């Protein structure tokens, strides 16, 4: 039993009762928020794992081709082939609000109109494996962007869920029991005060009656 340090007065009691109602309502709302966040989070995390497997497999394949291309081409030739890209990708970002967590949404924008404009080099002086490497990377890039979006969302939501869970627990196991106990304590204390004042009044009444009777008796005997 844990009590708040308050005076056992009727005013404190009303104040605490009002606080208890607010705490209960807050607890219910936060619990709903936590449950909904958790539902969305689990969906996202499943997608995250799926995408990650996909992306890792795709990159592994691209890297296989890249290794072969590296082994047949000189460093210099590779630099020349790749260092002046004809394509350039940028992102437009919009924000989405999911249960008060702001998560980013990426929309890719390409510099050239043709999305297949990915070969920045002449085919004569480069290895065919380089083409395959570049092609498989360009195939995996939509999944990579989605992965970035989903993984970021998961991280942000995980932080929010952790926070909400703490709040729910604090309300459920600390604040609400504390309010309840204190309200009970004040009620009991007030009742006790009332009883004691009733007893005191009865006692005083008895004493007064006794006094009157004694006075009367003294009067009666005095007259004899």
């Amino acid at each position, binding site marked *: 039993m844990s009590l708040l340090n308050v005076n056992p007065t009727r005013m404190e009691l009303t104040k605490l009762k009002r606080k208890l109602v607010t705490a209960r309502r807050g607890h219910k709302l936060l619990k709903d928020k936590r449950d909904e966040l958790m539902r969305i989070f689990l969906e996202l995390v499943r997608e995250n794992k799926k995408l990650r497997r996909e992306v890792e497999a795709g990159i592994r394949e691209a890297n296989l081709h890249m290794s072969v291309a590296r082994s047949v081409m000189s460093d210099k030739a590779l630099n020349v082939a790749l*260092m002046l890209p004809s394509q350039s990708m940028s992102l437009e970002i919009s924000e989405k609000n999911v249960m008060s967590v702001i998560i*980013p949404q990426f929309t890719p924008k390409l510099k050239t109109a043709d999305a297949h404009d990915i070969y920045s080099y002449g085919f004569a002086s480069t290895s065919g494996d380089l083409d395959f490497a570049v092609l498989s990377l360009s195939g995996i890039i939509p999944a990579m962007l989605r*992965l970035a979006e989903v993984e970021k969302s998961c*991280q942000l939501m995980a932080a929010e869920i952790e926070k909400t869970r703490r709040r729910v627990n604090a309300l459920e196991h600390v604040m609400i029991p504390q309010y309840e106990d204190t309200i009970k304590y004040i009620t009991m204390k007030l009742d006790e005060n009332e009883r004691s004042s009733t007893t005191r009044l009865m006692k005083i009444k008895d004493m007064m009656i006794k006094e009157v009777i004694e006075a009367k008796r003294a009067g009666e005997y005095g007259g004899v």
Partner: protein
Amino acid sequence: MYKIAAIGDKDSVYGFASIGLSVFPEEDAAGASRVLRHLAENGYAVIYITEQLASQLGAELQHYREQTLPAVIPIPGIRGNNGMGMKNVSKTVEQAVGSDILPD
């Protein structure tokens, strides 16, 4: 307009240049950390970084985890992956749920 970057050893990231990402070849953690900070402050929304480098930048990645942007995403490099990306996902689940309830 935001940009996309890839950080890692040369062989792992050069391929991304041809599809329009900005590439930053870095071999060691100190350089990668410097580049990462520079990119985060200069309009890069998504930063792919090889797992080899990412596993040496624990504290920095933790810092960017809590921000809306940029998204720093570990990817396998040319020397294969060390499972760090997947471990990160499990860590996220653990943070949210309390234990990793989604084994592979």
